[in-house]
């Protein structure tokens, strides 16, 4: 066995595709995920040739939002888009894609500049750097999208978008979907083994795979999908409804995907300490392409907020405890050991 020294100047395999950036140490191409605060968490963007799994239980509304951002980013770069969904009409998903923000909009300008003048008493803290819990990239590739502002029809018509299923059928199996993806990759010239591959990226968004509307074996589907993706200039995001699948099927899907993000919606949570967030994001797996090591994120527990118009991913932390509550029983216990004062302000 021999090792070939990796030479970054080797230009043979360097491919320049629109909307991608090369990670030179691993010789892979990264493309933005569509959520600007997610990219630094997962190592700069989604890796070309990978299957990225998004798990969510319940209504799955946030997983759907992730897919929409993913497709919107593709539209901005004029990538070719393949959008499949059995549960929701795929053309409806396309029509609801969030559009790019107008950077002159005061709503997006004023972000982060809410420091309220000089501190009079605790002036020592004046020069403390404010804690930045959401990471941002300096990469110029990513766009910011406004959830209230849909993508214009003209921009959508300008992009090569294929929808699946093409027509209503009685029984639709995973095999039909894999065949459609295979056809798209081959006909579109996205195979990376071609001598002159097409200078574009195929973005595949698969919504709610594993819903009871599909017939067939989900594990086999993932196996085939992954091997298809590995040989093409394409990137795939798949959402699965975890509450409709067996434990075993979920672990098979996780095993056969390159990256796994798990979303937990907090919209209906009654825990007041988590009310700041709309959901939690856990990184279960990140891709290791062309290397054994994967990107090590600054943490695995993240939370997301859907502000009025923006979607933000932040480091998850509990809020400061401002008032005494029943949750901290040890304090009460400590109190009884010392003086048993009746009133809290008695001396």
């Amino acid at each position: 066995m021999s090792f070939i020294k990796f030479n970054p100047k080797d230009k043979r395999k360097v491919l320049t595709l629109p909307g991608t950036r090369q990670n030179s140490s691993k010789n892979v191409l990264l493309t933005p995920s569509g959520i600007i605060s997610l990219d630094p968490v997962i190592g700069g963007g989604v890796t070309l040739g990978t299957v990225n799994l998004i798990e969510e239980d319940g209504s799955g509304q946030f997983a759907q939002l992730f897919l929409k951002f993913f497709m919107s980013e593709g539209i901005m770069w004029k990538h070719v888009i393949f959008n499949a969904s059995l549960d929701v009409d795929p053309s409806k998903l396309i029509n609801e894609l969030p559009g790019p923000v107008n950077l002159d909009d005061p709503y997006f300008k004023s972000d982060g500049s809410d420091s309220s003048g000089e501190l009079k008493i605790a002036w020592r803290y004046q020069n403390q750097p404010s804690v930045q819990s959401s990471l941002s990239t300096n990469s110029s590739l990513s766009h910011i999208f406004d959830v209230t502002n849909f993508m214009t029809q003209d921009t959508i018509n300008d992009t090569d978008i294929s929808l699946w299923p093409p027509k209503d059928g009685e029984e639709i199996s995973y095999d039909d979907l894999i065949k459609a993806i295979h056809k798209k990759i081959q006909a579109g010239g996205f195979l990376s083994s071609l001598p002159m591959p097409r200078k574009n990226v195929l973005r595949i968004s698969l919504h709610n795979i594993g819903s009871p509307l599909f017939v067939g074996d989900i594990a086999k589907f993932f196996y085939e999908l992954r091997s298809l993706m590995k040989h093409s200039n394409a990137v795939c995001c798949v959402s699965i409804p975890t509450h409709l699948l067996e434990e075993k099927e979920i672990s098979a899907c996780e095993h056969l995907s390159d990256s796994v993000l798990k979303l937990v919606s907090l919209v209906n949570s009654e825990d007041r300490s988590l009310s700041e967030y709309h959901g939690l994001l856990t990184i279960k797996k990140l891709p290791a392409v062309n290397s054994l090591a994967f990107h090590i994120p600054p943490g695995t527990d993240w939370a997301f907020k859907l502000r009025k118009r923006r979607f933000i991913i932040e480091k998850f932390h509990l809020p400061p405890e401002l008032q005494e509550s029943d949750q901290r029983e040890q304090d009460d216990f400590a109190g009884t050991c010392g003086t048993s004062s009746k009133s809290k302000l008695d001396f």
Partner: protein
Amino acid sequence: MLKALISNCQPNSFTLIEDSVDVSGKFLLKEFIEASKTQSQKTLVLCFDKLGSSLKRDLNIELPTAEFIDCCFNYQESLSGLNKPLRSILESHVSFDEKVTIIIDSLTSLYYNNGLQDTYRCLHSLLTKPIKKGTQLMQLVAVVHSDTLPDTKSISTLSHLASTEILLVPTNLVNRRHLFIKHAKKNGKIVKQEEYCWYDKSGVLLSEEKKTVSKVEDAIDPNGLTTFRLSLEETEIKARSELRLPYVKTSEDGDTGGKIFYTPDDNDDWDEEDPDDDLDI
């Protein structure tokens, strides 16, 4: 909330009623059928458990727009592809551009004959695809006898499709029905409520939210605990803001180095030599 759910529905909503041998959900079906006359031009009741005529007698409904359709298929024949026979039955009963409400008296026989996946697919297609061109489904109401299904997963799969879930639970109260309602709003928020419902003397269904004793702690007012006055008056706040604190100025100087002013005492033992002289600092 129950009354509101019955009387004003969103288009394309699916209400799943889960009952059991102890509490029957038939009374709710009656309410839904009667309320549907204001919302849709036609109400189709698909009868799987009983013959249409006997269900109609049971529910005691005289509604010209409601049609009771017998769906007790011949079980000897295999019913592969449930969707097609059901669709052709429905197609023969509706005309173009009609608003339709579909009521299913029980999903149990569908489940046993065709399996969970087919049942799910059939309901999904009813909800997403119009029966005929221009027909609009106003509401789909289905009863499922939760004790006849083998596992809870089947119910949770079916309820994944439902926008409203009404779970009937046995109660000891006389003449009252106890129900749990889970309603998913359009924006994804889920409202959960526990209610009691009953019929009054004139036969009108009434409902009431179950009152839970909520533990509300009174916020402690610190002023009541002490003889000190903890608040400030306006003049005092003004005086405080005008007061120049001795250290404020030094902090704004921007002189970061710091200085030591030291006046030696007469009997100070002043050591000229640096004691750390030999160290290589």
